[in-house]
């Protein structure tokens, strides 16, 4: 396992550098932020002064060099908008999204495994049809629409939940998590169902039954672990995709997470924050991919064996 990890981590280094360079150049393509940060009536001299102070008067390669030199010393610059250190802002926002995404995926995976297995146990039964229809519908509802509906129905009309915000008890989590949850949950139910159906019709399941194994033993002892591989892959991809959902959820519910931070820093041309945020997100995504690979190796001996090669 250790050489496997080492190899994976080393092979992530080059793509990470690509991400850093990519976001640097993409950000520069969006133009000089000077108009945004100075009053419309600011004089040309003030504009030049501002550009010089922020280093925007340098050529892009020179700016890149400065950025890389600073980044090597773990200095990712200062936010144009708030004057805070970009690192600090990113690390303030990151745990919010991480918690949100963690709770969401935990619920999505648990729920999907239970419901998906139930549906797969009797394909085409009423339970299966209803579970499939609901999960497909869930996966195709626009998240912002669901969020606004949730606020109006559960926040205002029924007054069961707070409309938005982060402060308070567990009830503040309900709407944001539900909004973030619907799509991964819907997709995962279908994936679990599909892979459980094929696992349950595999010959080794017949053999297990020929040994007199009970249904519970067949499902949990034999089929589930075989069905888990595609579920893990899809769950990994969906977790990565949660960053997209987080942009919407955090915007609507006023959660100070990394998604909102990134979109705000794009709109505000706050390059330092954008670069720091994308870098941290990318590192997290790489770590997540490695984690998924490790889980694959843990659940499937064939993968484990193939690793040293």
């Amino acid at each position, binding site marked *: 396992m250790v050489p496997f990890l080492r190899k994976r981590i080393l092979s992530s280094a080059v793509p990470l550098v690509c991400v850093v360079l990519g976001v640097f150049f993409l950000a520069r393509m969006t133009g000089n932020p000077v108009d945004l940060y100075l009053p419309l009536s600011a004089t040309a001299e003030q504009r030049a002064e501002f550009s010089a102070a922020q280093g925007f008067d340098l050529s892009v390669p020179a700016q890149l060099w400065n950025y890389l030199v600073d980044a090597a010393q773990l200095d990712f610059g200062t936010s144009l908008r708030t004057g805070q250190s970009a690192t600090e802002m990113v690390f303030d926002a990151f745990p919010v999204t991480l918690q949100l995404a963690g709770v969401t995926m935990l619920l999505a995976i648990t729920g999907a495994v239970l419901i998906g297995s139930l549906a797969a146990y009797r394909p085409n039964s009423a339970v299966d049809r209803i579970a499939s229809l609901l999960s497909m519908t869930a996966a195709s509802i626009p998240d912002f629409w669901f969020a606004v509906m949730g606020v109006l129905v559960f926040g*205002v009309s029924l007054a069961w939940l707070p409309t938005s915000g982060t402060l308070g008890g567990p009830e503040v989590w309900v709407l944001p998590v539900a909004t973030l949850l619907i799509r991964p949950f819907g997709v995962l139910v279908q994936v679990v169902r599909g892979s459980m159906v094929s696992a349950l019709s595999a010959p080794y399941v017949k053999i297990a039954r020929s040994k007199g194994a009970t249904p519970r033993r067949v499902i949990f002892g034999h089929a589930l672990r075989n069905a888990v591989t595609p579920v893990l892959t899809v769950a990994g991809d969906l977790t990565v995709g949660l960053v997209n959902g987080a942009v919407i959820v955090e915007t*609507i519910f006023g959660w100070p997470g990394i998604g909102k931070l990134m*979109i705000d820093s794009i709109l505000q041309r706050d390059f330092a924050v954008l670069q720091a945020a994308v870098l941290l997100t990318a590192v997290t995504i790489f770590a997540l991919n490695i984690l998924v690979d490790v889980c694959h190796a843990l659940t499937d001996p064939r993968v484990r064996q193939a690793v040293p090669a």
Partner: protein
Amino acid sequence: MKFSVSPAPPARRRRLRATTAALLAGTVLLSSGCAVVGSAAGDAGRADGRTLRVVLTQEPPTLEPCEASLTGTGVVVRSNITEPLVERDPDSGELHPLLATGWKQTGERTWTFDTRTGVTFHNGAPFTARDAAFSIDRAVNSDLACNVEGYVFGDDDLEVKAVSDTRLTVTTEQPDPILPLRLSFVEIVPRTTDPDAKVRIPVGTGPYAVGSWQPGAAISLHRHDDYWGEAPDFPRARYVWRSDASVRAAMIDKGEAEIAVALDPVEAEKDTTASYPNNETTALRLDGREAPLDDIRVRRAVDLAVDREGIIDALLGGLAEPAGQLVPPGVVGHNDGIEPVRQDVARARALVEEAKADGVPVGRQITLVARNGMFAGVSETAEALQYQMQRIGLNVKVRMADTATQLQYQLRPLPKGVGPIALLIMHGNQAGDAAFTTSQYLLSDGPQSAFGTEELDRRIAGAGALSGAERQKAFAELLADQNETVVQYTHLAHMSGLLGLSRSIRYEPNSATGDEMRLAEVSPAKAKH
């Protein structure tokens, strides 16, 4: 704001309004009795009748007082946490003493201010003229690159001296007749404030002090017990922010907040909302350098094609007034005689046909650029304009841009090679005088103008030199003239803001509310017995 992710641009400044017309009764009703206690909890804290909960569109980037000319910062900081020497009445435009008790011009380039005694900062330190001198120096002469410096002072430095504990002098490089007005933007902080770095949480003399700032979540204020003036009704205040207008409205409905800013016009019919003219004017700026917009008949046709009343009623909740000029009533130079153009599709079509017959390429694609979040309903407005322009035989494409992109189209140097542009702008006259508008928007080389005529340039220069009634008349005439001979602008509407107000409080918004919301003016509603 509808496109809620795009926050109000920081470039939107607090306005210096010298409006003479009192559009609203600015009386603050003093309270008595107990507040209605809501049941719902939320981010903004429990409704306990003692905390005033305000929901903004975005988190203030900072509370640094020298950045208070940023809308997002100023709305929290100004007159709540810190105070300037002089304040402007948003209704009358007159200057009132605040931390200064009086001021006069004592030399060609020098003004002298007497400061108030018995004022203490939140940290307990007494306020003196030295603090005022320090604050002005820090905001204007330092290397902090404060927004207020670029906003009101330009490149010149000020020479500030505290003559005694209660008197200071300010000397400018050039004679400046409106220095007190400029200084109304400088918020006063104690001498102990860091002169070399911006602070995020300021100390001031205002009625409220910052209790805590939970980043991303909320800012809590509490009453400053040693405040020199009248104590505000609410002991505590709490700011939260939601970028989605429907969520802000929901928070009022649910009782999770007492005040919500910038609601959608859809909410206007509720009795928990209050609208107020915010001195903004929207217009379509036509780039007369590019065909087919270089033909005045085409520009005039666009003006005639627009259904202002329809747009206002259907898209802006009926909250705006049709406009025929860039400055709203109350601004020096506003021409009462200009009637907003009425829609006349037949005439517009005829004008386009005429231009076409003369070889003007009316089929060339015009890009209509608008900014997401400029005002609620902006994208529908852009669609309506596009349709109405298309209906008279022009070829129009809409491009919704973000703030930074739209500014590239708005400010000189204008982008090249992008074809004919019709730019949707929203202009707030800041000085209360049309000179500001004309120099920016109407001069041929004005920073926010696409083109002009020499004749108009001459008239603008001439009008700027006049004063009094002559000045009013000259500007009024040249505004009418732009509508006749230049037609760079197709004016749409003088806009309004919409505030959500809980039934448990009383507050009268005024034209400055968007930039400076004075919590001390909010009082609990009278409870019914």
